[in-house]
């Protein structure tokens, strides 16, 4: 096996989950260090460096959210993925507000987990994008300097707000952006509760950039939490899924 390229700190109080995650992650090219509690994780973070943290939200002791807060205080750019359960939307939103890069809902497949970790790590490792740098994902190209959006080369006419939403999402491509964050960025802090507002605009936006607005490919909904724009890698996965051959490609990927 080649030198592992991603070093992960896995923080979960449930040993069953740690035991289930370690072998496949190690096998697939990750180095896994385990911590049982947030306090322990913080200690480990001080003594060595990691590429990403998998952090369970529900833990005894200081808990996931507080651990995240303390991690952010010392490592603002370290990718942190929260492990959460369905129906815990408020926790998810809270985690995003506190600076989590992403969350993944239990129970998840290893493939999904790895894809999320890779996306987060990739984003951090990529050179910092300038605010006005051109962004191109799939068929969509956004030129901030001219506030221009094209789809397969064709200009897409967007209103100012629609452009604002799209820019915010594409700038953070791959990462979920919470409703409140989007509303604050585009409309201002006093609009952060107006989710219905946002929904209407996203609907309009999808009509303009998606082939099938009711089955979006680019602008995805994170139910109850917010929206995310796919990044290039996710698009590739989307295209490959659910062909079994793609699984092989994915699995083989780390070794290459």
């Amino acid at each position: 096996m080649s030198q592992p390229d991603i070093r992960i700190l896995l923080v979960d109080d449930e040993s069953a989950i740690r035991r289930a995650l370690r072998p496949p992650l190690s096998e697939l090219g990750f180095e896994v260090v385990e911590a049982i509690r947030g306090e322990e994780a913080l200690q480990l973070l001080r003594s060595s460096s990691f590429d990403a943290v998998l952090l369970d939200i529900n833990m005894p002791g200081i808990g996931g959210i507080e651990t995240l807060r303390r991690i952010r205080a010392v490592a603002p750019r370290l990718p942190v993925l929260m492990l959460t359960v369905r129906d815990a939307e408020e926790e998810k939103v809270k985690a995003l507000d506190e600076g989590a890069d992403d969350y993944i809902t239990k129970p998840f497949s290893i493939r999904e987990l790895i894809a999320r970790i890779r996306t987060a790590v990739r984003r951090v490792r990529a050179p910092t994008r300038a605010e006005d740098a051109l962004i191109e994902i799939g068929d969509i190209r956004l030129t901030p300097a001219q506030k221009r959006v094209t789809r397969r080369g064709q200009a897409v006419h967007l209103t100012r707000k629609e452009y604002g939403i799209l820019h915010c999402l594409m700038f953070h491509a791959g990462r979920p952006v919470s409703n409140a964050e989007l509303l604050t960025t585009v409309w201002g802090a006093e609009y952060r509760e107006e989710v219905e507002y946002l929904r209407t605009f996203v609907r309009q936006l999808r009509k303009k950039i998606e082939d099938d607005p009711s089955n979006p490919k680019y602008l995805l909904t994170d139910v109850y939490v917010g929206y995310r724009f796919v990044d290039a890698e996710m698009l590739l996965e989307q295209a490959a899924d659910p062909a079994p051959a793609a699984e092989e490609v994915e699995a083989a990927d780390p070794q290459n």
Partner: protein
Amino acid sequence: MPEASNPVRIILFGSLARGSGLKALLFVLQCALGIIGVILAAALAHSFDWLLPVAALIYLAIVVPTALLCGFWQAVIVSLSAVVVHSFFTARQALFHLAADPANTITDNAVTLVAFVLIALVVSRLSARVNRNAQQAETRGEEMRDLYEFTRRTLAMNLHSEPGQQLAELVQEIFALEAVVIFDADLHQTYQAGFWNQDPQDLAQNVYYFETADDDPVSGIGRRVLRLGAVPIGSVVVRGDTSPMTNNAIASLIATTFDRYRAFVNESHIETERRTEQLRATVLDNLAHAYKTPLTAIRAASTGLGEMGRLSAPQSELVALIDEQAAVLNELTNRLLTTARLDADEVALRAAPVGVRSLIDEVVSGLKERLASMKVSVQLEDEKLELCCDRQLMRALLTQYIDNACKYSIYGTTISIGVARAHAETIFSVHSLGSEIPPAERERIFDRYYRSSMSSHRAAGTGIGLAVAKRAAQMHGGHVWVSSSQTEGTTFFAAIPTAVLQRSFS
């Protein structure tokens, strides 16, 4: 109130007849006393000359009280005796004095007699009326007191148990009745107190079924139908001394008590149900969450094995099976969680415009495997139909309907999904061919944990699915129902108000 006074009179005569021996003795005694009085008065009047001119007044002083206190006939007899005694004394005096003219005396006597009888008549009539009124007033007063007491006792009644028996005993005790029987049509129960020489159950039920309300003065039996508004809810039959008005009042008090009991039971039932519901919701919630950790470990392990590769084909198949079943278990857990939340009213409706077509496509593709053996046809009134709803909830509802149609329909037949606008509602329908749902079960299948008793309707399931569908519709302000027949098949409907749409856009 002529009706009211009638039985009073009847009762008076009745009691008169019952104590006739005593009455006759009293009558004779009263007359005798009156006659003695008259004789004494006559003797007195005739022994003092100055009293003689006012002798008639003295007799009157005896006749009037007799009429007042004893009655008309006693007064007449006393009057007659007064005339006879007076004549006798006058005649005796005349033998000695020869002062008066005998013919004149006879005329005098006849006039006096008529006058006395007239006075007796008038006075006794007057006094009888006064007496009767007083007696009636007293009876009424007593009845009022009894009714008041009855009202008080029914209000203080413990409504934790059926009130019928308590009521029967109370009525008998308070109104001093010989026997009482109450029929509660709702519970189909008869309650009796006292002794009946006929079958009280039949008696009371006949009153209820034929709606007879009457009073029989001979047997003393009063029958009443218990009503709430115009609706008969039972009957009461009493035997004893009560006026029809009292019987009416008793009947309405019993009806009110039955109503109060029902309201009380309903209320406490609802309260108990609510508490049980909350408890169950909490337990389900905890349970569902506790399932998540092992499920996560299983899923991570099985998918991990698959991702690591190096598995033989049969091994991969087994790993896939583990993964698949973990997914099924997870889905069940999620459903439990949803139900628990819905029941605990914790779910807030997150309404947003949803394309009906995409919603149905999503649900159908989610059920792809289940639907493999069935044909599916989707009929939309309008392809662009949109609805403002909670997508997750509506998806749960439709998934349940279609899943249900799969389970209970004939293999290989078509499941038709339809959406149509009607007035202010968007109506979803899922039709399938299968055995008929008995009419009695059509409401209940939407109840939690209800499983059809019919063997042909037995299939794997948690018995919570349709309850979720119902709650999901209710949360949108909509409703669900089912129509079913052996020939036409079964159709599940869900009507969701379209008005929600306007609200969110305004």
